């Protein structure tokens, strides 16, 4: 793990001395993401979720951990692969599923689909489908937070592919120039669609090193191990919240299913079954469960209860989504412009 200037002490609260309830809440969050995604995968072939859909199965650790470390007034933006980030930030599961089903009760009233999630109530400011598109937007949110003088931060979720967009470099540069409270969380899952890193970025060059040279406080870590992810993220959030530096973390992980859609696709040739199996061995949920079992924080019964709770919640949410009505087709012609005048200060200051 690399730690660039400004130097900071490790956060006092380490994962190890967090209490059992907290540790179980992280597990629950991971399981919840996994079970939601798997249920989407199961139902997608029914042809009722009619939009491009990118699942985070295998990548649950990073979102779950960071979700426990942010407050509601912290903000977040994300990408095409946003389900996990949205859920971890506290986004409404029913509204998300309804959105994927294109329903009126969806978080965008059916206009955005899987790639466009939003839950303003919990500070999830939006995910968009163009690679890199929300990166500067997150930096702008952080600018507004800094101007307001509050202690909040903005998290920008991005992938290893998004690093290649010039706009990442531009946005990061500005965040450093202005010392903005933004935390870039890069889930490096080795692929951009079917393209391995080596055809896109120089071999041997680390993403976190680029970030560090740009001037971001930068670290990397194993994104499949809860304790390590927790350590890296707590440090980063501390640095960021204290206004010391805009920060960057690169967390290594792996997407299990196909880039877009519900299936496995290790047979089509862009990556090997062996690679997949090696990563599956390192399933973040299994690794964490083992740890919790060992520490006697978890037992089979607790797990069963947790899973049953989640199953109920998730089945309910799918039920909600499937039975919600479509928006009437005239709503396609809902206004493209917001109405009204947008003046905060009632008094006319001059004239």
């Amino acid at each position, binding site marked *: 793990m690399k730690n660039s200037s400004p130097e900071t002490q490790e956060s006092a609260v380490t994962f190890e001395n967090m209490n059992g309830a907290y540790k179980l809440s992280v597990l629950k969050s991971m399981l919840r993401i996994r079970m939601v995604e798997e249920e989407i995968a199961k139902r997608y072939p029914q042809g009722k979720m009619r939009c491009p859909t990118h699942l985070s199965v295998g990548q649950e650790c990073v979102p779950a951990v960071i979700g426990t470390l942010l407050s509601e007034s912290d903000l977040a933006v994300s990408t095409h692969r946003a389900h996990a980030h949205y859920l971890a930030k506290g986004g409404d599961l029913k509204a998300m599923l309804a959105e994927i089903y*294109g329903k009126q009760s969806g978080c965008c009233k059916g*206009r955005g689909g899987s790639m*466009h999630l939003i839950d303003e109530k919990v500070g999830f400011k939006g995910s968009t489908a163009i690679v890199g598109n929300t990166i500067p937007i997150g930096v702008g949110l952080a600018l507004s937070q800094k101007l307001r003088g509050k202690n909040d931060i903005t998290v920008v979720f991005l992938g290893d592919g998004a690093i*290649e*967009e010039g706009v990442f470099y531009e946005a990061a540069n500005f965040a450093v120039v202005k010392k903005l409270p933004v935390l870039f969380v890069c889930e490096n899952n080795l692929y951009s669609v079917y*393209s391995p890193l080596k*055809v896109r970025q120089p071999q041997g060059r680390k993403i976190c090193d680029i970030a560090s040279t740009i001037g971001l406080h930068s670290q990397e870590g194993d994104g499949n191990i809860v304790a390590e992810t927790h350590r890296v993220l707590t440090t980063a959030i501390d640095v960021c919240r204290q206004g010391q530096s805009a920060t960057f973390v690169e967390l290594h992980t792996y997407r299990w299913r196909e880039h877009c859609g519900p299936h496995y696709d290790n047979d089509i040739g862009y990556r090997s079954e062996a690679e997949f199996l090696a990563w599956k061995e390192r399933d973040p949920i299994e690794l964490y469960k083992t740890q919790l079992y060992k520490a006697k924080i978890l037992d089979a019964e607790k797990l069963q209860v947790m899973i049953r709770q989640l199953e109920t919640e998730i089945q309910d949410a799918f039920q909600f989504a499937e039975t919600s009505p479509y928006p009437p087709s005239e709503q396609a012609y809902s206004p493209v412009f917001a109405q009204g005048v947008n003046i905060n200060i009632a008094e006319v200051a001059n004239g």
Partner: protein
Amino acid sequence: MGERSLTFAQAINEAMHLAMEKDPEVLCYGLGVDDPKRIFGTTKGLQEAFGEERVFDMPTSENGMLGIGIGAALNDMKPVMVHQRLDFFLLAMDQLVNAAAKWFYMFGGQRSVPITIRLMLGRGWGQGPTHSQNLQAWFAHIPGLKVVMPATAADAKGLLLASIFDPNPVVFLEHRWLHHQEGNVPAGWQDDVLGKAKVLRTGTDITLVAISYQVVEALRAAEVLQSVGISAEVIDLRTVQPIDWATIEASIAKTGRVLALDTGALTCSVSAEIVARSAEKQFSLLKTAPARIAMPDFPEPTSYGLTKSFHPDARNIVTQACKMCCVTEIEKALNSLTVPEHHDVPGEWFKGPF
């Protein structure tokens, strides 16, 4: 040269093979050109046949990578750049407009930029607001760009070859709903030119000027219009920059009625240009107001529910043409149009996700 039935996507693929065989300076690059899916099959076999130097994947760096293609083109290469969605290409407007489009004129006509940029237009299966934009009007508005929108498999091949070997920057727009359409495609090399429209069906009462996927709808509509006594001439514009005014004007001179059909948003669209120009130049020949059917001025929503009647199709064309020809049997005409089970897929075989 025999004719075989190929899909539009296969025809593109064949054109790419022919071009790369013919000229070692033709390159093909873009996200996924060598991946298992091969851009909906359109780049199949290219890397195997022509090697990794000429056929390559790229970083997700749209503006930089267009500039790199332009640079190669300035040194006599003929790059074909590919984007799976036009929407991603918005990142590259500086290179397209400030460099590629202007180079030949601005540097005194010394050096042109023989690059071809293949962009897919989306629609359906929840492509939504940022995966479905049809921005041909933007490209047509910029002096120095050629803009090609084939509608048939044969034209996909012929016009792609013409684009690659045209000395100018060409934006080549492929509608995803055309990729699977089959048609007769002559084998071997094809000579075609950019800037010539085709009259796909002759008629005497109304001129339908269509582009890209709207050609399919126009032909469906024309069939039905016949049944209520309207003889529609269908022009497939094929390129929207330059526009083949001669063909359009000759048709309007005959029919006195023009209906322009666009896949882009209405305001300042290619269909606006066609209507405007017809009104300006052929005012006295027009028997009724010229009209256009285009996308509404709204982003494309994602939901199955919202897209139900979002994309104007043969029904809208039939209705509008009947009105323009003062034919009242609109319901009769509409009833003979078949309606697909799902409005958001190019065929029932399509199951997503992209």
